[in-house]
């Protein structure tokens, strides 16, 4: 076996085979089948258009996208401020703050939903505070604001980590060069920091958007009056056994999230790695 010979290729094939077989059997073929199932309903391929033609689905789609876009925007702003601050400064307690900010990384959506209920549900802290302050109980959890806060909750940790990693790689000599050239802190942020963070922001923004669009657990727990797309799919599947529509909608959802990530990667270069 020369290390670039045919035998070597065979060996590499054998090493790849288990993963390839697993992936084929438990994702690629099932997914291909799902695409077929989506077209198997009374509408045929039309099911794939129903997300645009059916008023209910379209509303849900718009809600999902607008919500996700807002969450992405807010997350980017918040994470940039906090992430750059934590990367630039060393002070006692910094690593504790960092740990706190990254814990929710592995919380399932259901837990995030529950935490939002505790924060601003009917018996939530915000409700108690506002009642004490104004006499009026503010309950956000079961509305669009609740979803927004929940999505924000699971998005911030991911984006903060990406921003910090990118800021760490930022060549500090660039900042120093700008300072020697007389740039103010704000100008430095505008001319040096943000351009350098650009690719990281595009990629983490895309991940944030894609994750929000596909998020299911949070909406599930909050059981809001707004039906985001994943909830819609879940309801079609479980409550109405409308399997072709559920299949078609989830394929559309998958294509959208994949496309957003692929687009971000073509813009930001190969830095878009999907976070959990």
């Amino acid at each position, binding site marked *: *076996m*020369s*290390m*670039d*010979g045919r035998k070597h290729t065979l060996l590499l094939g054998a090493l790849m085979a288990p993963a390839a077989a697993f992936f084929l059997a438990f994702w690629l073929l099932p997914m291909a089948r799902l695409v077929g199932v989506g077209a198997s309903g009374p509408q045929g391929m039309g099911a794939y258009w129903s997300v645009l033609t059916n008023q209910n689905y379209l509303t849900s789609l718009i809600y999902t996208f607008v919500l996700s876009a807002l969450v992405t925007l807010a997350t980017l702003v918040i994470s940039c401020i906090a992430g750059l601050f934590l990367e630039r400064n060393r002070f006692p307690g910094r690593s504790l703050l960092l740990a706190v900010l990254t814990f929710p990384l592995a919380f399932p959506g259901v837990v995030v939903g529950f935490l939002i209920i505790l924060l601003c549900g009917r018996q939530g802290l915000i409700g108690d505070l506002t009642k004490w302050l104004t006499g009026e109980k503010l309950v956000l959890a079961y509305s669009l604001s609740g979803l927004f806060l929940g999505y924000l909750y699971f998005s911030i940790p991911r984006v903060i980590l990406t921003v910090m990693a990118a800021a760490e790689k930022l060549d500090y000599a660039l900042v120093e060069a700008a300072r020697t050239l007389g740039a103010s802190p704000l100008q430095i942020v505008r001319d040096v920091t943000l351009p350098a963070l650009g690719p990281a922001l595009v990629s983490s923004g895309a991940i944030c958007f894609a994750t929000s669009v596909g998020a299911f657990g949070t909406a599930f727990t909050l059981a809001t009056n707004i039906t985001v797309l994943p909830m819609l799919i879940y309801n079609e599947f479980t409550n109405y056994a409308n399997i072709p529509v559920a299949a078609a909608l989830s394929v559309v959802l998958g294509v959208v999230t994949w496309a957003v990530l692929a687009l971000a990667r073509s813009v930001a270069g190969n830095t878009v790695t999907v976070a959990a």
Partner: protein
Amino acid sequence: MSTSTAISILQCGKTYPNGTRALETVDLEVVSGETLVLLGPSGCGKTSLLRMIAGLESPDAGGRILFGSEDVTAQPPETRNVGMVFQSYALFPNMTVAQNVGYGLRIRRLPEERRRARVAEMLEMVQLSALSARRIDQLSGGQRQRVALARAIAVTPRVLLLDEPLTALDAKLRESLRVDIDTLLRKAGITAIYVTHDQAEAMALGDRIVVMDHGEIVQIGSPTQIYHAPANAFVADFVGSVNRLQGNVQDGVWRCGNAALPWPADAPVGGVVMVRPEDLRLGHEAAGAISGTLTARYFLGNRTRLLVDIGQGAPVLVDTSERGEFALASQVHLRIDPATMIVLPA
């Protein structure tokens, strides 16, 4: 070490899957026990050739590699019994110095006791006995390269392959390690193939030097042949510095300025004359010399390099060991010994 072997490379070329032609089809004979240096700029194919001999790459169809009379073309590296020293050292970070040196012996299932003796012998040879239990990241660059050398020699290879072993080291260390390697190779009488882009290293180490360029072998010869009788302008330029002098040939005499030298009988028609900087002598009179103006001087310690404008575009380089003032803008007269004149096809 009697296991050393002669090596024949027959009709070997290398094309990578992406179509890059790394090595044109070449033939090369390596004599048993000699140190052969493959010299050339990066991308000239020297490393591809070395890796082919190691078995890390296979030649294009039709190429064959013989160790002695044994055809090893189809053999993987692990059965060829070669020793290789990598530019990046490639020492196993998960093993100690001794474990690195003993790795090949362990693979060969040498009994523990003999293995330990051999490792000790090797470490003594490279003067690292005291560091045998160290981890690799606790060693300096020079020490790492010596461990790599000991590891490659420990298995008594049929040929020792060295891929730019000194490139990653600083200049001073490079020089002392070069001497060490030379001593080691002489003592061991081992067949060695040494890849480098550093002509000084090639001169110092090689019994023979193979100069390569653009995937082709340009010249094979002893260091003196390569230096004094380069096969073409590329070799002359790559091995040391050289001046091109423009002159006229008439009636068997080459004239440049006031200099007139006999045109060698075997010189090619329209040949280019080249002279090395140290072969240009400073004279006191213009008669029989090429005259020019001194435009720059650099004191280099053991010699002084002068730049002389003789009105031929690029300044002429002159190396002299004379001590003098060398006033700028002064007139300089250069003499050429006919024996040092290199005439190459244009």
